[in-house]
C-alpha cells in the first residue's frame, strides 16, 4: 500500500501554498473547491455509458467513435480533456489499459486512478505479461482470446467497452450499470452476474 507522505513533503506543500497565496496566485478556498469537484468523478459514469451502449445501438456507435462526445451526452464536462478512445471487447479480443509512463486515465468518467494502476508493478508488467497479471487477479482468458494492451497517454485516454454477460436479458440500464465495475472498464476484470443463475 502507498506509504504516507514524508514530513518534508508535507512541509514543502505548506511552503509552496503559503508562497502562492502570498503572491495572490491561488487561495486555499480555490484548491478546496477544485478538490470537491474532482472527488465527484467516479466510475459510475463510465458504467452508465457502457450500460447505455449495451441497450442503445446508436449510443454504442457514438461511444466507439467519439468517447468524449458520448461522455458529454451523459452530462460530463470534457472541456480541455484529451480524446477518449473506447475499446470494444469481443469474444475474440480482450483489451487491457495501462499507462506505462505514469498514470494517464480517463478521470472525468472513472474518477481518480486507483493505487494499483499507478504502481510500478502494473505499469511494467501489464505490457510484458498481461495474461499473467490478469490471471493473478482471477481473470483467466483462454488462449483463443487475443489480449490487446493499450497504453494510455497524456494526449489520449482509453476505456474498455466490456461484453454484456449472458443472463442480463431484459435488464434496464440502471441494473446493467450495477454490474459494470471500474476494473471491467480498465480491462482487469469482466462484468459478472452475481449469484446463482436461475434454472432454465
Amino acid at each position: 500500500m502507498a506509504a504516507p507522505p514524508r514530513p518534508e513533503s508535507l512541509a514543502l506543500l505548506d511552503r509552496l501554498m503559503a508562497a502562492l497565496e502570498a503572491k495572490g496566485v491561488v487561495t486555499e478556498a480555490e484548491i478546496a473547491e477544485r478538490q470537491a469537484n474532482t472527488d465527484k468523478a467516479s466510475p459510475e459514469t463510465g458504467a452508465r455509458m457502457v450500460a447505455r451502449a449495451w441497450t442503445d445501438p446508436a449510443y454504442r456507435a457514438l461511444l466507439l467513435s467519439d468517447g468524449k462526445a458520448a461522455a458529454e451526452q451523459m452530462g460530463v464536462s470534457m472541456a480541455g480533456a484529451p480524446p477518449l478512445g473506447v475499446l470494444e471487447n469481443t469474444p475474440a479480443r480482450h483489451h487491457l489499459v495501462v499507462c506505462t509512463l505514469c498514470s494517464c486515465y480517463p478521470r472525468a468518467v472513472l474518477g481518480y486512478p486507483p493505487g494499483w494502476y499507478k504502481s510500478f508493478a502494473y505499469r511494467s508488467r501489464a505490457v510484458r505479461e498481461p495474461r499473467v497479471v490478469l490471471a493473478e487477479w482471477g481473470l483467466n482468458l483462454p488462449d483463443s482470446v487475443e489480449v490487446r494492451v493499450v497504453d494510455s497517454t497524456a494526449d489520449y485516454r482509453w476505456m474498455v467497452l466490456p461484453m454484456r454477460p449472458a443472463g442480463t436479458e431484459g435488464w434496464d440500464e440502471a441494473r446493467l450499470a450495477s454490474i459494470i465495475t471500474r476494473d471491467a472498464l480498465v480491462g482487469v476484470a469482466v462484468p459478472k452476474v452475481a449469484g446463482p443463475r436461475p434454472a432454465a
Partner: protein
Amino acid sequence: MPDETPIPAIHDIGGLARFHCTPVEHDEAPPDAFGKKVDALRQVLAQKSLMTVDELRRGIESIPEGDYFALGYYERWLRSIAGLMVEKGIVGKDVLG
C-alpha cells in the same frame, strides 16, 4: 533478470524486468488528503495557464532514479510543481527549503 538494454528514461518502465516478480497489489485506497490537495493544486495552476501537463511530466521524469522510486506518487508531482513554480519565477527559491 537484468534488462538487456538500458532504459531510455526512468519513468519509461513498461516491460522493465525488475518488476516481473512483483505482484500487483490490490491497492484501492483513494488519494490521501495530501495527494488530493496536490492534485487540486495542479489543476488550478493549469487552469490559470501557469503550468501544463507536459511541464508536470518533465519535472517528474527528471527526478533522479533513487528518488523516483522512493517518493510517493503525489510526492513526485509536488516536487515537479514546486520546481516549475520556482523555475518560472512565480515563487522564490526558498520554497524548496
